[in-house]
């Protein structure tokens, strides 16, 4: 696979290195001359100097044959432009864009750029994972494929606590795929009894979170989301 990474900051440089280690063909583009010279010492010909929002720079990097373009500069307007041009002008099949300021996410969406990766968002998810009082953690969101995996903690007074899997009235389009109990995960059977404090992984169609959360949340508490 041929991958172009735009922006050789901490994210771009490390990403390029990892991808090269995995055996991918990678070109990294960096617009700051001094930064380029530093990165070039390690990555040599795999890094090119230039402003990745200039069409000729992208063309020089071979964007016409790129399978994936990753826009991870520190400026959202640049990432939007690179993604838009890559997708619509050069018909690159896959794009990944970084959102620096979460408030700009709407602009990416408006212009049809996805998936987007926001560091703020990722850190928030980690916090939710580590500090699970939020109740519900999104582990995976595949918007295009309309598929999600969420993690829920079974509250002490949840309606499902003490019930068997086959007694849990989950909506169509959802399935309990794993239970984490005492630090260990297992795939439940229909007669597995759900205990309070269990972490339940559910795969679901988007839009079912609320209904599912209700089954595992404390009956007094508001559901998370």
């Amino acid at each position, binding site marked *: 696979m041929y991958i172009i990474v735009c922006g050789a900051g901490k994210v771009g440089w490390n990403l390029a290195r990892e991808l090269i280690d995995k055996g991918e063909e990678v070109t990294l583009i960096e617009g700051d001359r001094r930064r380029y010279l530093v990165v070039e010492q390690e990555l040599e010909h795999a890094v090119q100097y230039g402003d990745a929002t200039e069409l000729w720079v992208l063309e020089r990097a071979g964007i016409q044959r790129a399978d994936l373009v990753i826009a991870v500069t520190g400026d959202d*307007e640049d990432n939007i432009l690179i993604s838009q041009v890559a997708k619509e002008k050069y018909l690159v099949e896959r794009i990944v864009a970084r959102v620096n300021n979460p*408030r700009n996410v709407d602009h990416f969406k408006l212009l049809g750029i996805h998936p987007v990766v926001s560091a703020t968002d990722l850190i928030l998810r980690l916090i939710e994972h580590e500090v699970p009082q939020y109740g519900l953690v999104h582990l995976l969101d595949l918007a295009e494929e309309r598929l999600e995996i969420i993690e829920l903690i079974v509250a002490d007074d949840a309606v499902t606590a003490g019930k068997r899997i086959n007694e849990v009235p989950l909506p169509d389009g959802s399935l309990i795929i794993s239970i984490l109990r005492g630090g260990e995960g297992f795939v439940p059977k229909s007669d597995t009894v759900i205990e309070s404090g269990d972490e339940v992984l559910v795969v679901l169609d988007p839009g079912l979170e609320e209904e599912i959360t209700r089954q595992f949340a404390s009956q007094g508490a508001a559901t998370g989301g």
Partner: protein
Amino acid sequence: MFVLIVGAGRVGSAVARWSLDQGNEVSVLDEDPLSQERLNRDQTTSWDDAGGMFTVGTALEVDALEAAGIERADVCIVCTDGDNTNLVVGQVAQRRFEVGRVIVRVLDPYRAEWYREQGLHTICPTQVAIEMLEEAVVSS
């Protein structure tokens, strides 16, 4: 007409002043409070006194665009000093706020051309300069 001008540099401030003199309602958005002074330069009445509006804010922030009145703008001229910012803001004005007439200043001729082909009204001063220089060479 309500005219919103995003970016009050040399170009933006001059167009803003002209637009106000034409009898339009004019609102200017710029992230630098000092750029309001540019609107007052060589003028007998200040921008405020002449009835112009000025909002300090970042062009990419929807809140700032709304504070500057984008929702009721008939015309939106985007001319900050960043081509990419202008291209994004221009598309936001066109697609999200459905401003009737959006004009975007883009210095890079290639980006200006491609986005023009995509239906965005771009103006490229660089291209104008190139053509003028070429013409000057031929006619001299």
